């Protein structure tokens, strides 16, 4: 599947938030969306998935405009993983995960055993089968985030959209989430669009990066090229140093903030 945004612009009234955004990703690609607080990262996700209407421009799935595809079909291809927030009702992790099957189940039908098996398998795949009877209201942020990822996988999507999946998590849980995204893209050829606050994470997992600037413009390209000192200074008003070091067989890259620009 090719997911594409062409010349997308969005703003409330006269205020431009997103200006002329274009990108495309195909199976197995991971794209990071970077930008400072309030610059419109979540708005971008909402616009490209059709929750908000682009003022100009269009989202395409395999060259077909998104608005021409029935929403049920769209949500069999794309799965959205929102930021983990507590829910009002204490659903068990398994019940929460089964909800992901919704687009595959007829409107007046209930989930069958088959759907529950798919949910159990998704939980096993991301390593949280032990959580299945735990209530979502009693989980830590990391656990809930993994449940939401498992729920997204039950859709058997071509693309995952994740909104800051690793914020508010500790080191270990961050690594678990990042590894999960990376493995899904490599092993199952699922593409992913990830909003993140961490340039280093973007370098670690993504092939492409979209960096949003305060004036609505953006940088887009391969992440190793886009995430450089000059662009970071423009987007975040921060002087950074992009560091590279070798440990064992791997090259690690980190982005170190130096001072306010």
């Amino acid at each position, binding site marked *: 599947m090719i997911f594409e945004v062409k010349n997308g612009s969005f703003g409330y009234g006269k205020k431009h938030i997103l200006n002329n955004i274009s990108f495309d990703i195909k199976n197995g690609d991971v794209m990071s969306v970077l930008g400072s607080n309030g610059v419109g990262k979540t708005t971008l996700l909402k616009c490209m998935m059709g929750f908000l209407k682009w003022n100009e421009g269009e989202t395409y799935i395999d060259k077909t405009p998104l608005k021409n595809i029935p929403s*049920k079909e769209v949500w069999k291809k794309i799965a959205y993983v929102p930021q983990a927030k507590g829910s009002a009702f*204490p659903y068990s992790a398994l019940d929460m995960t089964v909800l992901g099957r919704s687009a595959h189940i007829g409107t007046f039908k*209930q989930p069958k055993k088959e759907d529950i098996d798919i949910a159990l398998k998704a939980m096993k795949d991301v390593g949280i089968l032990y959580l299945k009877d735990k209530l979502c209201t009693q989980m830590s942020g990391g656990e809930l985030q993994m449940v939401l990822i498992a729920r997204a996988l039950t859709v058997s999507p071509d693309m995952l959209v994740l909104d800051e999946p690793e914020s508010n998590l500790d080191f270990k849980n961050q690594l678990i989430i990042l590894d999960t995204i990376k493995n899904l893209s490599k092993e199952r050829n699922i593409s992913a669009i990830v909003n993140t606050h961490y340039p280093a994470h973007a370098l670690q997992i993504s092939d492409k990066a979209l960096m949003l600037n305060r004036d609505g413009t953006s940088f887009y390209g391969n992440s190793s090229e886009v995430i450089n000192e000059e662009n970071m200074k423009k987007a975040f008003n921060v002087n950074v140093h992009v560091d590279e070091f070798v440990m064992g067989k791997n090259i690690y890259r980190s982005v170190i903030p130096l001072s306010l620009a």
Partner: protein
Amino acid sequence: MVRNKEIDIKIFLVLILIPIISALVCIGFGRYSISVPETVKVLLNGINSYASDEMAYSVIFNVRLPRILLSMLVGAGLACAGAAFQGLFTNPLATPDTLGVASGASFGAVFAMMFDANLIVVQIMALIFGLIACLITYNISKIKGKSTIVMIVLAGMVVSAMFQAFVSLLKYVADPQDKLPSITYWLMGSMSGATYKTLILGAPFIIIGTLMIFILRWRLNILSLNEDEAKSMGINIKIMRFLIILSASLITSSAVSMCGQVGWVGLLIPHLARMLMGSNNKTVIPISISLGATFMLVIDTFARSATSAEIPLSILTAIIGAPFFIGLLRKTGGAWS
């Protein structure tokens, strides 16, 4: 803490049998008491039993059966509507009463009664004003596309107060000799008006609404998620919301027009269901229907047989419901928290 369980065949049978057995027992209660075996015999023989025991036949079939059917229907419906509103508004405190739907429906019904309208017109007016009340509450509570629990409860209180004031206004201008007592008494809730005719006119609305919610029960879980999240599950959230609001309002307004305002059921029963078997609406709805029917039946039997005069239902549901609910809350800490 209650773990979420599935309804298997055993639990399913229990859910069906509880209301039926309670009904068989409750039919016997009252001035003319009838034993359970006798009740079963008369019911099974149907019209033939008229010959053998005319009195029992007439008490069971003409007096108590319609009333018992009505109370079960109203209890099941109101509990189901409460559970649906709670899921829809992502709010454990949303019920037909707290959202103002019941008050709106009462206003519509009283308005129609002032003009001696027949039951169908009363029901339709109740439905229209119940829906209006629900939509007003929904729109007041929505700020930037989101509504918080507090806002919904506050908006519901205001809307409810407004429609109650309208009802008071109607009562004020109503004929004190004839209309006023009947309206006042009716508002306190009573099943005494139950006949087969009211059942035939009112039951379909409650049955359709309950059936609709029963069919959509699993989707209620999705509606209780955040709006974008729910959309990303591939459901048409607007149509789904409308169907649930329509069904729940249909039940409420039909119940109100047949037997006045009966409070508490919509709050008490769904919470009891959650405390028993967890919050998945796939189980909450069937349990609410079964327990709602049983609860209303028992309360109404008490209302008609405890004293020589009838006790209004809403008084009983509050007196019995409130302490029961407090006890459950203290014991479980509220299954939603």
